[in-house]
């Protein structure tokens, strides 16, 4: 049988099996920490309790599976360090997701809304939002996500603009970190760290090299490295095992197809 002409549905079945089966086993591979992930970890780790940290949920709903472990490690780290988290979203689709996630993780640490964290919600036209917060956060977001005037959160009144903000983290599936670099960093000198989808790393590379962006923690591997730095093995670790198996399966499939096509041609 010429394997190279296999029905695509058999390939699909193989992929489904190699995704599902490894998940049933609790195997966590050894992860080596890269300097990129170490960099963003150190940036957050060097902040002091009570410092503000802004977390921007810059992704769309469809890529949530990839962004969730990244968002979790960042928020876990920030709550653990007792930082004051200011959440916001620059994609309308990420808004509700960001809020839900923040609420969930805050509960684990017994943090209170308005005291330890706030969620500003969504603003369209990200360039003007990014630039606007350089002048005044409260002007861009007079109300938070829950439609309360921002002034009532007295613990957050110290945050006027980027000058009071030691670090901003953009959790992104697309090119928004570039806009943070071009507008918040270049114009206001804001430190911007990035946790992003694996596909975006090459696009951001020059910004990391020039120091305009910090990080990145990228994709499921970045999240797993971060988990290790935080001292636990969570969802990203488990996924990484499955991930390895799937990559290997695809490679083996390609090799099998090539050998089969070669043998078949000889006949």
């Amino acid at each position, binding site marked *: 049988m010429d394997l*190279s002409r*296999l029905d*695509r549905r058999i*390939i*699909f079945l*193989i*992929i*489904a099996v190699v*995704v599902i089966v490894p998940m049933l086993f609790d195997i966590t*591979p*050894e*992860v*080596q920490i890269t300097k990129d992930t170490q960099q963003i970890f150190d940036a957050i780790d060097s902040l002091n309790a009570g410092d503000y940290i802004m977390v921007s949920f810059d992704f769309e*709903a*469809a*890529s*949530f*599976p990839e962004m969730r472990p990244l968002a979790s490690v960042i928020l876990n780290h920030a709550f653990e360090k007792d930082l004051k988290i200011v959440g916001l979203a620059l994609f309308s*689709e990420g808004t*509700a*997701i960001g*809020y839900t996630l923040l609420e969930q993780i805050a509960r684990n640490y017994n943090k209170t809304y308005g005291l330890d964290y706030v969620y500003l919600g969504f603003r369209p036209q990200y360039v003007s939002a990014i630039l606007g917060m350089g002048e005044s956060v409260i002007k861009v977001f007079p109300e938070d*996500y*829950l*439609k309360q005037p921002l002034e009532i959160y007295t613990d957050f009144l110290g945050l006027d603009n980027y000058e009071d903000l030691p670090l901003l983290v953009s959790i992104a599936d697309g090119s928004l970190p570039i806009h943070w670099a071009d507008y918040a960093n270049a114009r206001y000198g804001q430190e911007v760290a990035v946790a992003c989808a*694996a596909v975006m790393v*090459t696009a951001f*590379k020059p910004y990391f090299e020039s120091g305009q962006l910090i990080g990145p923690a990228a994709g499921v*591997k970045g999240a797993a490295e971060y988990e290790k730095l935080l001292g636990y093995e969570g969802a990203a670790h488990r996924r*990484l095992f499955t*991930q*390895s198996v*799937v*990559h*290997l*399966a*695809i*490679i083996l*499939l*390609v090799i099998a*197809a*090539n050998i089969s*096509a*070669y043998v078949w041609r000889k006949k």
Partner: protein
Amino acid sequence: MKTRLPIAICFIFGIFTLLQYFSKHPTLTAMYAEILDWMQIIFVFTLLVGVITIFKIHSGKISRKESNWPYSILTVLGIVVMAGLGFGYGTDYGSPFLWIFQNIQVPMQSTMFALLAFFVASAAYRGFRFRNKEAAVLLITAIIVMLGRVPLGHQISDLIPQTAEWIIDNPSTAAKRGILIGIGLGSITTALRVILGIERSYLGGRS
């Protein structure tokens, strides 16, 4: 008149936005911002036209009982319910609009996106063949990078992730820059042809 006026407007707005880039003058910047707002406003009105065409096509299917017409009811219902809830009860946290978005739209969207993993496998299976030297280069690079991005690569040899990194930083980046420069040049001349009215099939003229 039917074609000349659109071409004149295209030219004037094109030249203005082109020249505005080179000035930080507040009046020009304000005019530019105003034009951007106009573009958004026109877009939203056009979206309404798009929604009307969807309604027309699907209600036509329903009334003519064309094949698959019951499915069209779902589309029409989806639009009406979402718009009704959104305009009627708001889009805030806890609203029914957001509930539908999170529990119906998002799962379907992310599942569509997840189909890609299957398609990546089938495309690789079919397309990665050792046909000639170019295809071999494509195949081998893909395999090295795929291995280098997961812990498995480290376990086989540290050389794999290092090679993957080197490939992405050097030859791959070089080709990407070459492609981007080409795209840049193509975009510029296409835009010039549009501004000068050489290319105008969408404005009613023969190109």
